[in-house]
Protein backbone atom coordinates (compact mmCIF):
# COMPACT_ATOMS: atom_id res chain seq x y z
CA UNK A 1 0.00 0.00 0.00
CA UNK A 2 0.90 3.66 -0.37
CA UNK A 3 2.64 5.05 2.75
CA UNK A 4 0.45 7.54 4.61
CA UNK A 5 2.08 10.29 6.66
CA UNK A 6 0.74 11.90 9.83
CA UNK A 7 1.90 14.07 12.70
CA UNK A 8 1.96 12.71 16.19
CA UNK A 9 2.41 15.10 19.08
CA UNK A 10 5.05 14.31 21.65
CA UNK A 11 2.26 14.11 24.23
CA UNK A 12 0.20 11.73 22.11
CA UNK A 13 2.73 8.89 22.28
CA UNK A 14 1.90 8.12 25.89
CA UNK A 15 -1.83 8.30 25.09
CA UNK A 16 -1.28 5.75 22.32
CA UNK A 17 0.70 3.56 24.68
CA UNK A 18 -2.04 3.64 27.31
CA UNK A 19 -4.70 2.84 24.72
CA UNK A 20 -2.73 -0.17 23.54
CA UNK A 21 -2.27 -1.41 27.09
CA UNK A 22 -5.99 -0.85 27.55
CA UNK A 23 -6.63 -3.11 24.55
CA UNK A 24 -4.73 -5.82 26.43
CA UNK A 25 -1.69 -5.72 24.20
CA UNK A 26 1.62 -7.01 25.53
CA UNK A 27 4.20 -4.34 24.84
CA UNK A 28 7.88 -4.99 24.23
CA UNK A 29 10.05 -1.91 24.22
CA UNK A 30 13.62 -0.83 24.94
CA UNK A 31 14.28 -0.55 28.65
CA UNK A 32 17.44 0.12 30.64
CA UNK A 33 19.30 -2.59 32.53
CA UNK A 34 22.32 -0.92 34.06
CA UNK A 35 23.94 0.74 31.06
CA UNK A 36 22.45 -1.58 28.46
CA UNK A 37 19.19 -1.25 26.59
CA UNK A 38 17.10 -4.40 26.36
CA UNK A 39 13.82 -5.24 24.68
CA UNK A 40 11.62 -6.25 27.54
CA UNK A 41 7.99 -6.44 28.48
CA UNK A 42 6.98 -2.95 29.66
CA UNK A 43 3.81 -1.91 31.44
CA UNK A 44 4.53 1.79 32.03
CA UNK A 45 5.35 4.32 29.34
CA UNK A 46 8.03 5.86 31.53
CA UNK A 47 10.03 2.63 31.46
CA UNK A 48 10.62 3.08 27.74
CA UNK A 49 13.85 4.72 26.62
CA UNK A 50 14.24 6.57 23.33
CA UNK A 51 17.84 7.84 23.34
CA UNK A 52 19.70 4.64 22.55
CA UNK A 53 21.45 3.23 19.50
CA UNK A 54 20.34 -0.38 19.49
CA UNK A 55 19.37 -2.80 22.21
CA UNK A 56 21.73 -5.60 23.21
CA UNK A 57 19.19 -8.35 22.56
CA UNK A 58 17.31 -8.29 19.28
CA UNK A 59 13.54 -8.17 18.94
CA UNK A 60 13.32 -11.54 17.20
CA UNK A 61 12.12 -13.28 20.32
CA UNK A 62 8.67 -11.76 19.94
CA UNK A 63 8.12 -14.17 17.03
CA UNK A 64 10.94 -16.64 17.64
CA UNK A 65 11.42 -17.03 21.41
CA UNK A 66 14.59 -18.65 22.75
CA UNK A 67 12.45 -21.55 23.94
CA UNK A 68 9.28 -22.42 22.04
CA UNK A 69 7.01 -25.23 23.14
CA UNK A 70 6.07 -27.31 20.08
CA UNK A 71 3.96 -29.95 21.76
CA UNK A 72 3.62 -31.85 25.01
CA UNK A 73 3.13 -35.59 25.34
CA UNK A 74 2.02 -38.18 27.84
CA UNK A 75 3.20 -41.74 27.39
CA UNK A 76 1.34 -44.74 28.71
CA UNK A 77 2.16 -48.40 28.09
CA UNK A 78 -0.37 -48.54 25.27
CA UNK A 79 -0.01 -45.26 23.39
CA UNK A 80 1.23 -41.70 23.53
CA UNK A 81 -1.12 -38.73 23.74
CA UNK A 82 0.10 -35.51 22.16
CA UNK A 83 -1.08 -31.95 22.73
CA UNK A 84 -0.11 -29.57 19.95
CA UNK A 85 1.13 -26.29 21.39
CA UNK A 86 0.32 -24.24 18.30
CA UNK A 87 -3.35 -24.36 19.27
CA UNK A 88 -2.38 -22.06 22.17
CA UNK A 89 -3.56 -18.46 22.07
CA UNK A 90 -0.38 -16.43 21.51
CA UNK A 91 -0.12 -12.98 23.08
CA UNK A 92 -1.04 -9.87 21.07
CA UNK A 93 2.30 -8.07 21.04
CA UNK A 94 3.24 -4.56 20.14
CA UNK A 95 6.95 -4.06 19.46
CA UNK A 96 7.46 -0.43 20.43
CA UNK A 97 10.53 1.65 19.76
CA UNK A 98 12.34 -0.80 17.54
CA UNK A 99 14.91 0.57 15.09
CA UNK A 100 14.48 0.34 11.31
CA UNK A 101 17.16 -2.41 11.32
CA UNK A 102 15.16 -4.38 13.87
CA UNK A 103 12.04 -4.09 11.76
CA UNK A 104 13.90 -4.94 8.54
CA UNK A 105 15.16 -8.13 10.20
CA UNK A 106 11.64 -9.57 10.26
CA UNK A 107 11.73 -9.86 6.46
CA UNK A 108 14.56 -12.45 6.18
CA UNK A 109 13.32 -14.09 9.38
CA UNK A 110 9.81 -14.50 7.95
CA UNK A 111 11.23 -15.81 4.70
CA UNK A 112 13.20 -18.45 6.58
CA UNK A 113 10.15 -19.64 8.51
CA UNK A 114 8.07 -19.83 5.31
CA UNK A 115 10.51 -20.91 2.65
CA UNK A 116 9.95 -24.62 2.23
CA UNK A 117 7.62 -25.07 5.17
CA UNK A 118 5.10 -22.72 6.69
CA UNK A 119 5.83 -22.60 10.39
CA UNK A 120 2.47 -22.37 12.15
CA UNK A 121 3.70 -21.04 15.48
CA UNK A 122 5.95 -18.40 13.92
CA UNK A 123 3.22 -17.09 11.69
CA UNK A 124 0.65 -17.04 14.48
CA UNK A 125 3.00 -14.94 16.56
CA UNK A 126 3.77 -12.70 13.58
CA UNK A 127 0.08 -12.09 12.89
CA UNK A 128 -0.36 -11.01 16.50
CA UNK A 129 2.50 -8.54 16.16
CA UNK A 130 2.44 -4.83 15.46
CA UNK A 131 5.78 -3.12 14.89
CA UNK A 132 6.06 0.54 15.80
CA UNK A 133 9.63 1.61 14.95
CA UNK A 134 11.51 4.82 15.60
CA UNK A 135 14.08 6.18 13.11
CA UNK A 136 17.69 6.55 14.23
CA UNK A 137 18.95 10.01 15.06
CA UNK A 138 22.31 8.62 16.17
CA UNK A 139 24.59 5.71 15.31
CA UNK A 140 28.02 4.37 16.27
CA UNK A 141 31.05 2.77 14.61
CA UNK A 142 29.34 -0.63 14.74
CA UNK A 143 26.33 0.45 12.63
CA UNK A 144 26.34 -0.38 8.92
CA UNK A 145 22.70 -0.68 7.88
CA UNK A 146 23.37 1.46 4.82
CA UNK A 147 25.80 -1.15 3.52
CA UNK A 148 23.09 -3.81 3.48
CA UNK A 149 20.32 -1.88 1.71
CA UNK A 150 18.89 -0.48 4.91
CA UNK A 151 19.02 2.94 6.54
CA UNK A 152 18.30 4.98 9.67
CA UNK A 153 14.88 5.90 8.32
CA UNK A 154 14.14 2.72 6.42
CA UNK A 155 10.45 1.82 6.54
CA UNK A 156 10.80 -1.83 5.50
CA UNK A 157 9.34 -4.23 8.06
CA UNK A 158 7.66 -1.67 10.31
CA UNK A 159 3.91 -1.16 10.47
CA UNK A 160 4.43 2.45 11.52
CA UNK A 161 7.73 4.34 11.57
CA UNK A 162 8.08 7.37 13.83
CA UNK A 163 10.73 9.99 13.17
CA UNK A 164 11.42 12.65 15.78
CA UNK A 165 11.26 16.15 14.35
CA UNK A 166 13.05 19.33 15.44
CA UNK A 167 9.83 20.36 17.21
CA UNK A 168 9.97 17.28 19.41
CA UNK A 169 6.84 15.96 17.73
CA UNK A 170 6.93 12.97 15.41
CA UNK A 171 6.38 12.15 11.80
CA UNK A 172 4.39 8.93 11.64
CA UNK A 173 4.68 6.89 8.45
CA UNK A 174 1.91 4.32 8.27
CA UNK A 175 3.33 1.54 6.12
CA UNK A 176 1.06 -1.51 6.37
CA UNK A 177 -2.62 -2.39 6.71
CA UNK A 178 -1.95 -3.32 10.32
CA UNK A 179 -0.52 0.17 10.78
CA UNK A 180 -3.43 1.74 9.02
CA UNK A 181 -5.91 -0.07 11.24
CA UNK A 182 -4.09 1.14 14.32
CA UNK A 183 -4.05 4.70 12.94
CA UNK A 184 -7.76 4.71 12.22
CA UNK A 185 -8.59 3.22 15.62
CA UNK A 186 -6.64 6.10 17.17
CA UNK A 187 -7.40 8.75 14.57
CA UNK A 188 -7.64 11.38 17.32
CA UNK A 189 -3.88 11.09 17.79
CA UNK A 190 -2.90 10.99 14.14
CA UNK A 191 -2.98 14.56 12.79
CA UNK A 192 -2.32 16.01 9.34
CA UNK A 193 1.16 15.34 8.00
CA UNK A 194 3.87 17.85 9.00
CA UNK A 195 5.92 19.99 6.61
CA UNK A 196 9.30 19.13 8.02
CA UNK A 197 11.27 16.66 5.98
CA UNK A 198 12.34 13.39 7.60
CA UNK A 199 15.87 13.07 6.18
CA UNK A 200 17.47 15.93 8.12
CA UNK A 201 16.51 14.23 11.35
CA UNK A 202 18.28 10.98 10.58
CA UNK A 203 21.70 9.75 11.66
CA UNK A 204 24.44 9.65 9.02
CA UNK A 205 25.46 6.01 8.68
CA UNK A 206 28.60 5.40 6.61
CA UNK A 207 28.25 2.91 3.77
CA UNK A 208 31.28 0.63 4.16
CA UNK A 209 30.59 -1.90 1.45
CA UNK A 210 28.13 -3.00 -1.14
CA UNK A 211 26.14 -6.13 -0.33
CA UNK A 212 25.93 -7.25 -3.96
CA UNK A 213 29.71 -7.00 -4.46
CA UNK A 214 30.36 -8.97 -1.30
CA UNK A 215 27.87 -11.61 -2.42
CA UNK A 216 29.72 -11.89 -5.71
CA UNK A 217 33.17 -12.13 -4.07
CA UNK A 218 32.02 -14.80 -1.61
CA UNK A 219 31.13 -17.15 -4.47
CA UNK A 220 34.74 -18.32 -4.67
CA UNK A 221 36.10 -17.51 -1.22
CA UNK A 222 35.29 -20.80 0.49
CA UNK A 223 38.92 -21.86 0.78
CA UNK A 224 40.64 -18.77 2.16
CA UNK A 225 42.97 -18.04 5.09
CA UNK A 226 40.86 -15.00 6.02
CA UNK A 227 38.35 -17.15 7.93
CA UNK A 228 40.96 -18.52 10.32
CA UNK A 229 42.67 -15.14 10.69
CA UNK A 230 39.49 -13.21 11.46
CA UNK A 231 38.17 -15.84 13.87
CA UNK A 232 41.43 -16.66 15.65
CA UNK A 233 40.29 -14.96 18.86
CA UNK A 234 36.83 -16.56 18.65
CA UNK A 235 35.92 -18.33 21.87
CA UNK A 236 33.19 -20.39 20.26
CA UNK A 237 30.28 -19.00 22.24
CA UNK A 238 26.86 -18.30 20.76
CA UNK A 239 26.60 -14.62 21.61
CA UNK A 240 26.77 -13.23 18.07
CA UNK A 241 24.03 -15.59 16.92
CA UNK A 242 21.76 -15.10 19.88
CA UNK A 243 21.82 -11.30 19.73
CA UNK A 244 21.41 -11.34 15.93
CA UNK A 245 17.90 -10.31 14.80
CA UNK A 246 18.11 -12.58 11.74
CA UNK A 247 19.85 -15.77 12.92
CA UNK A 248 17.15 -18.41 13.12
CA UNK A 249 18.88 -21.74 13.69
CA UNK A 250 17.22 -23.88 16.29
CA UNK A 251 17.59 -27.24 17.96
CA UNK A 252 14.77 -29.61 18.86
CA UNK A 253 14.85 -30.85 22.44
CA UNK A 254 12.55 -33.18 24.31
CA UNK A 255 12.27 -32.62 28.03
CA UNK A 256 11.02 -35.72 29.77
CA UNK A 257 9.67 -35.99 33.29
CA UNK A 258 8.86 -39.64 33.73
CA UNK A 259 6.22 -40.50 31.14
CA UNK A 260 5.32 -36.86 30.53
CA UNK A 261 7.30 -34.38 28.53
CA UNK A 262 7.52 -31.47 26.12
CA UNK A 263 9.15 -30.97 22.76
CA UNK A 264 10.90 -27.65 22.53
CA UNK A 265 12.40 -25.51 19.82
CA UNK A 266 15.50 -23.84 21.26
CA UNK A 267 17.88 -21.27 19.81
CA UNK A 268 21.07 -22.84 18.54
CA UNK A 269 24.28 -21.37 17.19
CA UNK A 270 26.59 -22.30 14.33
CA UNK A 271 29.36 -20.96 16.55
CA UNK A 272 29.12 -24.04 18.79
CA UNK A 273 31.32 -27.00 17.96
CA UNK A 274 28.41 -29.22 18.92
CA UNK A 275 26.25 -27.66 16.20
CA UNK A 276 27.62 -29.91 13.47
CA UNK A 277 29.14 -32.70 15.57
CA UNK A 278 28.23 -36.15 14.27
CA UNK A 279 27.64 -39.12 16.56
CA UNK A 280 30.62 -40.73 14.89
CA UNK A 281 32.79 -38.05 16.45
CA UNK A 282 33.44 -36.51 13.02
CA UNK A 283 32.81 -32.79 12.73
CA UNK A 284 32.49 -31.30 9.25
CA UNK A 285 33.15 -27.87 10.72
CA UNK A 286 36.01 -28.67 12.97
CA UNK A 287 37.46 -25.23 13.65
CA UNK A 288 36.05 -21.87 14.68
CA UNK A 289 37.35 -20.66 11.32
CA UNK A 290 35.03 -23.02 9.49
CA UNK A 291 32.17 -21.93 11.74
CA UNK A 292 32.83 -18.23 11.25
CA UNK A 293 32.98 -18.79 7.49
CA UNK A 294 29.62 -20.55 7.64
CA UNK A 295 28.09 -17.63 9.43
CA UNK A 296 29.43 -15.09 6.93
CA UNK A 297 28.55 -17.22 3.92
CA UNK A 298 25.07 -17.87 5.25
CA UNK A 299 24.32 -14.23 5.81
CA UNK A 300 25.94 -12.64 2.77
CA UNK A 301 25.77 -15.41 0.15
CA UNK A 302 23.31 -18.23 0.83
CA UNK A 303 20.44 -16.18 2.20
CA UNK A 304 20.35 -13.51 -0.52
CA UNK A 305 20.41 -16.44 -2.96
CA UNK A 306 17.52 -18.26 -1.34
CA UNK A 307 15.43 -15.41 0.08
CA UNK A 308 14.58 -11.84 -0.83
CA UNK A 309 17.37 -10.24 1.15
CA UNK A 310 20.71 -10.70 2.89
CA UNK A 311 20.84 -12.28 6.34
CA UNK A 312 22.33 -9.17 7.91
CA UNK A 313 20.65 -5.84 8.60
CA UNK A 314 23.79 -4.06 9.79
CA UNK A 315 22.68 -3.47 13.37
CA UNK A 316 26.19 -4.37 14.58
CA UNK A 317 24.91 -6.21 17.66
CA UNK A 318 27.20 -9.21 17.16
CA UNK A 319 30.29 -7.00 17.09
CA UNK A 320 29.25 -5.06 20.16
CA UNK A 321 28.42 -8.18 22.14
CA UNK A 322 31.37 -10.37 21.13
CA UNK A 323 33.48 -11.09 24.23
CA UNK A 324 36.55 -11.45 21.99
CA UNK A 325 35.80 -8.33 19.95
CA UNK A 326 35.37 -10.14 16.65
CA UNK A 327 33.91 -7.54 14.33
CA UNK A 328 31.64 -8.56 11.48
CA UNK A 329 32.22 -5.29 9.62
CA UNK A 330 35.95 -5.81 9.95
CA UNK A 331 35.62 -9.29 8.42
CA UNK A 332 33.33 -8.25 5.58
CA UNK A 333 35.46 -5.23 4.71
CA UNK A 334 38.58 -7.36 4.49
CA UNK A 335 36.93 -9.62 1.93
Amino acid at each position, binding site marked *: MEIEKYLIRKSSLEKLFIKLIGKGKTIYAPKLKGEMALFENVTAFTEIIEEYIVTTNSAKSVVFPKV*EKVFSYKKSKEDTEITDASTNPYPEVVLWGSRPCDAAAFIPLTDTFNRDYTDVIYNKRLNNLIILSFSCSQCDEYCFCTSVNGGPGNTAGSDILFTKLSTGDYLAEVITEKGKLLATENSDLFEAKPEEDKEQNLAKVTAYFNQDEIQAKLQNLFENPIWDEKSRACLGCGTCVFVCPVCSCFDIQDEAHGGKGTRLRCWDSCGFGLFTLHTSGHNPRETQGARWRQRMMHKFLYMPDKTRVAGCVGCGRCSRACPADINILDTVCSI
Partner: protein
Amino acid sequence: MIMNEFEPKIVAFVCNWCTYAGADLTGTSRIKYAQNVKIIRFPCTGRIDFMLLLKAFGEGADGIIVSGCHPNDCHYTSGNFHARRRWIMFRGLLDLLGIDVRRIQYSWVSAAEGAKWADIVNTTVTAIRELGPYTDYAKVAGYLEKEAKV
Protein backbone atom coordinates in the same frame (compact mmCIF):
# COMPACT_ATOMS: atom_id res chain seq x y z
CA MET B 1 -2.89 -39.03 57.97
CA ILE B 2 -5.30 -36.11 57.85
CA MET B 3 -6.77 -35.82 54.39
CA ASN B 4 -5.68 -33.01 52.08
CA GLU B 5 -3.02 -31.88 54.51
CA PHE B 6 0.15 -30.95 52.60
CA GLU B 7 2.23 -34.11 52.20
CA PRO B 8 5.81 -33.11 51.42
CA LYS B 9 7.75 -35.10 48.83
CA ILE B 10 11.14 -35.86 50.35
CA VAL B 11 13.98 -37.79 48.75
CA ALA B 12 16.72 -39.31 50.87
CA PHE B 13 20.16 -39.81 49.36
CA VAL B 14 21.93 -42.26 51.64
CA CYS B 15 25.06 -44.36 51.64
CA ASN B 16 24.81 -48.12 51.58
CA TRP B 17 27.01 -48.91 54.55
CA CYS B 18 25.81 -46.69 57.35
CA THR B 19 22.54 -44.89 56.81
CA TYR B 20 20.95 -47.48 54.53
CA ALA B 21 21.86 -50.13 57.08
CA GLY B 22 20.68 -47.81 59.85
CA ALA B 23 17.35 -47.45 58.07
CA ASP B 24 17.22 -51.25 57.82
CA LEU B 25 17.70 -51.36 61.59
CA THR B 26 14.84 -48.88 62.02
CA GLY B 27 12.78 -51.46 60.19
CA THR B 28 13.97 -54.47 62.14
CA SER B 29 13.32 -52.48 65.33
CA ARG B 30 9.82 -51.67 64.00
CA ILE B 31 10.21 -47.96 64.73
CA LYS B 32 7.54 -46.07 62.81
CA TYR B 33 8.13 -42.97 60.69
CA ALA B 34 6.39 -40.88 58.05
CA GLN B 35 5.86 -42.25 54.54
CA ASN B 36 6.96 -39.01 52.90
CA VAL B 37 10.62 -39.94 52.76
CA LYS B 38 11.83 -42.32 50.07
CA ILE B 39 15.37 -43.61 50.00
CA ILE B 40 17.77 -43.79 47.09
CA ARG B 41 20.78 -45.96 47.84
CA PHE B 42 24.30 -44.89 46.95
CA PRO B 43 27.51 -46.77 47.60
CA CYS B 44 28.86 -43.83 49.59
CA THR B 45 28.05 -40.19 50.32
CA GLY B 46 31.13 -39.45 48.23
CA ARG B 47 29.12 -40.69 45.24
CA ILE B 48 26.24 -38.27 45.78
CA ASP B 49 26.38 -35.74 42.96
CA PHE B 50 25.16 -32.25 43.88
CA MET B 51 23.40 -32.15 40.51
CA LEU B 52 21.11 -34.93 41.68
CA LEU B 53 19.99 -32.82 44.63
CA LEU B 54 19.27 -29.97 42.26
CA LYS B 55 17.40 -32.34 39.95
CA ALA B 56 15.28 -33.51 42.87
CA PHE B 57 14.05 -29.96 43.47
CA GLY B 58 13.55 -29.54 39.74
CA GLU B 59 11.33 -32.61 39.71
CA GLY B 60 9.21 -31.32 42.55
CA ALA B 61 10.84 -32.46 45.78
CA ASP B 62 9.88 -30.28 48.75
CA GLY B 63 12.77 -31.51 50.82
CA ILE B 64 15.91 -33.61 50.68
CA ILE B 65 17.80 -35.71 53.20
CA VAL B 66 21.43 -36.53 52.60
CA SER B 67 22.93 -38.99 55.03
CA GLY B 68 25.95 -41.20 55.46
CA CYS B 69 28.56 -42.56 57.83
CA HIS B 70 29.86 -40.51 60.73
CA PRO B 71 33.28 -38.96 60.23
CA ASN B 72 35.98 -41.67 60.48
CA ASP B 73 33.38 -44.41 59.97
CA CYS B 74 33.26 -44.25 56.18
CA HIS B 75 33.41 -47.73 54.70
CA TYR B 76 35.68 -46.24 52.07
CA THR B 77 37.68 -44.29 54.65
CA SER B 78 37.14 -40.78 53.26
CA GLY B 79 34.11 -40.60 50.95
CA ASN B 80 32.10 -38.80 53.60
CA PHE B 81 34.88 -36.27 54.17
CA HIS B 82 34.90 -35.38 50.47
CA ALA B 83 31.11 -35.26 50.48
CA ARG B 84 31.11 -32.94 53.49
CA ARG B 85 33.33 -30.44 51.68
CA ARG B 86 31.13 -30.59 48.62
CA TRP B 87 28.09 -29.95 50.81
CA ILE B 88 29.71 -26.97 52.49
CA MET B 89 30.37 -25.33 49.10
CA PHE B 90 27.04 -26.35 47.62
CA ARG B 91 25.13 -25.10 50.62
CA GLY B 92 26.82 -21.70 50.48
CA LEU B 93 26.04 -21.38 46.78
CA LEU B 94 22.38 -22.39 47.14
CA ASP B 95 21.99 -19.99 50.01
CA LEU B 96 23.29 -17.11 47.92
CA LEU B 97 20.92 -18.09 45.12
CA GLY B 98 17.97 -18.09 47.48
CA ILE B 99 17.44 -21.83 47.16
CA ASP B 100 16.14 -22.67 50.61
CA VAL B 101 18.87 -24.64 52.40
CA ARG B 102 16.44 -25.41 55.20
CA ARG B 103 14.94 -27.88 52.77
CA ILE B 104 18.09 -30.01 52.73
CA GLN B 105 18.84 -31.98 55.89
CA TYR B 106 22.34 -33.38 56.08
CA SER B 107 23.02 -36.02 58.70
CA TRP B 108 25.29 -38.81 59.86
CA VAL B 109 23.38 -41.98 60.71
CA SER B 110 25.37 -45.09 61.51
CA ALA B 111 24.31 -48.70 60.99
CA ALA B 112 23.54 -48.81 64.71
CA GLU B 113 21.34 -45.70 64.77
CA GLY B 114 17.96 -46.99 63.67
CA ALA B 115 16.21 -44.72 66.12
CA LYS B 116 18.18 -41.69 64.94
CA TRP B 117 17.11 -42.38 61.35
CA ALA B 118 13.46 -42.42 62.34
CA ASP B 119 14.02 -39.17 64.21
CA ILE B 120 15.79 -37.52 61.26
CA VAL B 121 12.93 -38.53 58.97
CA ASN B 122 10.19 -37.35 61.29
CA THR B 123 11.78 -34.05 62.23
CA THR B 124 12.56 -33.33 58.58
CA VAL B 125 9.00 -34.09 57.52
CA THR B 126 7.68 -31.79 60.24
CA ALA B 127 10.12 -29.05 59.27
CA ILE B 128 9.20 -29.26 55.57
CA ARG B 129 5.50 -29.35 56.45
CA GLU B 130 5.99 -26.06 58.25
CA LEU B 131 7.91 -24.58 55.31
CA GLY B 132 5.10 -25.70 53.02
CA PRO B 133 5.32 -26.77 49.36
CA TYR B 134 8.40 -25.47 47.55
CA THR B 135 6.39 -23.09 45.37
CA ASP B 136 9.31 -20.76 44.63
CA TYR B 137 11.17 -23.51 42.87
CA ALA B 138 8.05 -25.03 41.32
CA LYS B 139 7.38 -21.64 39.74
CA VAL B 140 10.69 -21.90 37.92
CA ALA B 141 10.47 -25.62 37.21
CA GLY B 142 6.96 -25.10 35.83
CA TYR B 143 8.18 -22.51 33.32
CA LEU B 144 6.82 -24.43 30.35
CA GLU B 145 3.40 -24.91 31.87
CA LYS B 146 2.93 -21.16 31.72
CA GLU B 147 1.31 -19.55 28.69
CA ALA B 148 3.67 -19.26 25.73
CA LYS B 149 6.02 -16.45 26.58
CA VAL B 150 8.64 -14.44 24.76
